[in-house]
């Protein structure tokens, strides 16, 4: 199953060794799918900028990114891995700042680079610690090395931070909701679908290499998954901009993936191979699934933004009538991301649920408690995601337009942009209805991560329910078709009468009176207001004939607004203050020298 390719490469400690194992294969699948789709889409999407700015650089960096990511997941040498990792970060940066005339985009890019750099540094340290123990920079050699539990703990910690920044675990996620909306849509799709998954790949690779971790690592990973998942989707509910919302959903899905990995890791720690394989396989399948449906959603959102010239959910509405195909495709994506049956999201969530329930039955008490928390949060995530995507779909695509948009009937985006969306939607449904191929592949990956021999027994144990689900899905489809026919038979062929929306006779509706996304999400956001730091500004109306009043509400991202930003600002101010002081007298410079000299003399010449 494993294939190693070697090329000559002359850099210190570097070796150009590529290895294809099940893990890389799974990630490569996602990469190839999305590179193709985002690339083709980009051709259409970027056409409107032709002439206005140079697209060559953009294309170059896109391809560079694709190559670099391919290298990351196949590299078998630390240095090569890190090189590709850095290359990926830089290429991503230049893709993000395509619209560099906007301050928000520049800020997003800045934040991204800092965040990714922090993460990369943790990886440097982690890999070198591993290399020191293993005495080699080769992943295969490292995998055969035994690490002490304390070191394994440290490495785990560094891996979580290093890769977690890229993946967008809470609270290291702050760059993510800025960067994804800033980039052109196909880049967002790629970022969300693939680039952040590379963080997951990093963790997976470390999990594979290390073999044995202390038990607490699994619990930490599980907790991170729970927190990221739940908070991600809650934040998403509070967003007003469609791509930002999708970005927070990426955090949520990364949380689900981390949850799966945590299940796998705990299964491994407690020597429950089936649970381990299930958790890992579920996480890996979710990696592919998320790449597909999130790609689809971002591409759809991009199409909407290109036609409507805004991504503000509360300004959109009724897009389904203007872009029926896009809206249908977006619906497929939305159903998939909510993890509903018939679509691919369900399959991976099913596997993780299955692993969790198996764990509840097999693990000791503390494991049971954590797994139950996992089940509950997964349920909550599912329900909240559903709320969120009914909101997006309902507000953006349905109803009446909320601001004046001049349209001439239906107006779809070009074929370049439609084709990839069709492909992705097709994949969603394919995996949803016929999960066997992908399940087999990811289960193989799960086995690989769980360090167990592929066993037909376990494979059957998971494929069997999946095939029944498969059957049920077809029954459901049959039922739907039957009901359609019943309806047609009952209604006859003639066209149905149409009228205004009735709403209990509550007519005379202006499109401004429609429910907006903010009001739709308000009960939930209000309910979690203390967790989310949900704040309203203005909006008090008083008097019998109230004056004009304004109201806005906003969900603050706690880790950004109350953790990272104040620290950075403080540091900067401090730095400015110190600088002004020391600049005034040259003599102070000389005193530094003198003091240092004395210090060295006292330190070294005492004996």
């Amino acid at each position: 199953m494993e294939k190693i390719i070697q090329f000559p490469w002359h850099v210190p400690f570097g070796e150009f060794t590529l290895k294809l194992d099940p893990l890389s294969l799974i990630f490569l699948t996602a990469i190839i799918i999305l590179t193709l789709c985002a690339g083709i889409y980009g051709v259409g999407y970027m056409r409107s900028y032709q002439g206005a700015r140079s697209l060559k650089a953009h294309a170059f960096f896109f391809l560079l990114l694709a190559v670099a990511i391919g290298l990351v997941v196949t590299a078998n040498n630390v240095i090569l891995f890190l090189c590709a990792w850095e290359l990926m970060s830089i290429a991503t940066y230049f893709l993000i700042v395509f619209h560099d005339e906007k301050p928000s985009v520049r800020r997003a890019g800045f934040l991204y680079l800092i965040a990714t750099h922090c993460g990369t540094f943790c990886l440097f340290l982690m890999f070198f610690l591993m290399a020191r123990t293993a005495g080699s920079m080769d992943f295969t050699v490292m995998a055969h090395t035994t690490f002490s539990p304390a070191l394994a703990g440290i490495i785990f910690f560094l891996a979580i931070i290093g890769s977690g920044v890229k993946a967008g675990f809470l609270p290291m996620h702050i760059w993510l909701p800025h960067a994804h909306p800033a980039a052109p849509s196909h880049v967002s799709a790629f970022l969300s679908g693939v680039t952040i998954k590379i963080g997951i790949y990093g963790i997976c690779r470390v999990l594979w290499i290390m073999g044995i971790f202390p038990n607490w690592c699994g619990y930490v990973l599980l907790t991170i998954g729970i927190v990221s998942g739940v908070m991600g989707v809650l934040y998403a509910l509070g967003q007003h901009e469609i791509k930002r919302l999708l970005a927070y959903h990426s955090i949520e899905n990364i949380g689900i993936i981390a949850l799966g990995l945590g299940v796998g890791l705990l299964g491994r720690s407690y020597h429950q191979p089936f649970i381990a394989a299930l958790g890992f396989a579920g996480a890996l399948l979710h990696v592919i699934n998320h790449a597909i449906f999130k790609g689809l959603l971002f591409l759809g959102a991009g199409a909407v933004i290109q036609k409507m010239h805004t991504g503000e959910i509360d300004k959109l509405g009724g897009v389904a009538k203007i872009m029926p195909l896009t809206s249908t495709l977006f619906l497929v994506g939305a159903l998939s991301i909510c993890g509903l049956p018939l679509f691919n999201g369900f399959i991976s969530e099913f596997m993780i649920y299955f692993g969790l329930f198996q764990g509840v039955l097999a693990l000791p008490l503390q494991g049971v408690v954590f797994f139950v928390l996992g089940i509950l949060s997964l349920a909550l995530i599912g329900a909240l995601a559903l709320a969120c995507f009914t909101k997006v779909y309902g507000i953006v695509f349905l109803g009446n337009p909320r601001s004046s948009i001049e349209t001439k009937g239906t107006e779809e985006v070009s074929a370049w942009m439609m084709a990839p969306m069709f492909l992705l939607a097709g994949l969603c449904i394919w995996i949803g209805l016929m999960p066997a191929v992908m399940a087999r592949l990811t289960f193989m990956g799960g086995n690989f991560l769980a360090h167990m021999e592929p066993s037909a027994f376990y494979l059957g144990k998971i494929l069997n329910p999946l095939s029944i689900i498969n059957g049920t899905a077809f029954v459901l489809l049959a039922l739907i078709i039957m009901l359609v026919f019943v309806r047609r038979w009952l209604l006859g062929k003639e066209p149905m009468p149409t009228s205004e929306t009735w709403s209990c006779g509550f007519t005379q509706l202006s499109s401004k009176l429609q429910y907006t996304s903010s009001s739709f999400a308000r009960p939930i956001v209000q309910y979690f207001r203390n967790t989310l730091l949900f704040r309203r500004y203005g909006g008090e109306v008083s008097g019998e004939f109230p004056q004009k009043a304004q109201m806005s509400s906003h969900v603050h991202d706690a880790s950004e607004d109350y953790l990272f930003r104040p620290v950075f600002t403080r540091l900067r101010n401090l730095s400015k203050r110190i600088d002004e002081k020391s600049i005034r007298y040259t003599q102070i410079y000389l005193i530094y020298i003198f003091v240092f000299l004395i210090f060295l003399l006292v330190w070294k010449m005492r004996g």
Partner: protein
Amino acid sequence: MVLLFSPFFLGVITRVKAFFGGRVGPSVFQPYFDLAKLFQKKCVYSHTTTWIFRAAPIVVFASVLAVSLMIPFGAFKAPVRFSGDIFLVAYLFGLARFFMIVAALDTGSSFEGMGASREAFFSCLSELTIFMNFVTLVLVAHQISLSGMIGAEIPLSWKLMGPTLLLVVSSFFIVILAENCRIPVDDPSTHLELTMIHEVMILDHSGVDLAYMLYGAAAKLFLFGGILVPILLPIHTGHGLMDTLIFVVGMLGIAIFIGLVESGMARLRLNRVTNLLLIAFALAFFGFIVRLWRG
């Protein structure tokens, strides 16, 4: 089975309510008449709506029917049984809910949007409770399939895990009320109140579509009852007809009890509903803890 009996279930509830309201009330078969009437009518659509609006009733009804395949009714074993079908059940209901909400938003009315928003919110909490109950039941029965959970082992479990099951049952009952929009949460018999949830979402449906929706809602209530009854009445005579009879009696009992609750309680204020659901969750969680304690 479901198609046949679910409107009857609804009829019983209405009848009980009427009885306690001091009225004679409609026949227990009245829902059948309603549905038959609706099936003959044509639909009226708003200009605002798209195909989503037309598709939603079909999907809702279809997914509820698909769920029914996984639930045993007395002697009738569930046609689809596998380890892990509980997720499919939960998420099929999710699919139904998704389309219901989206269809409501499709009308572009603030009225229906409001209902949709509430539905989305409350379902989050009830989903939590449902899964909590599932976890407890799985721990009790050591099986991850619905048929297994509420199947053969329950009589034994009542002896060992009586308190747990009692808690699960009570919490599940609240969920039934909430998920099916019964009285303390929602009022199924009125439209024009600013505090309702389910009914307001289907305001604009008419004719066959409305029939599908109503039928789906009735079936859903029936299915929830179907999950609850085997836990409450874990009597297996081994005789097919007897078992079915016991099941039917159980269902009737639940219907009557729901009717009683509806008659005896007033509708809760909307912001109290969350508390009710949280109480349900707390009950479920308590059950789980008791299970762990005994385990």
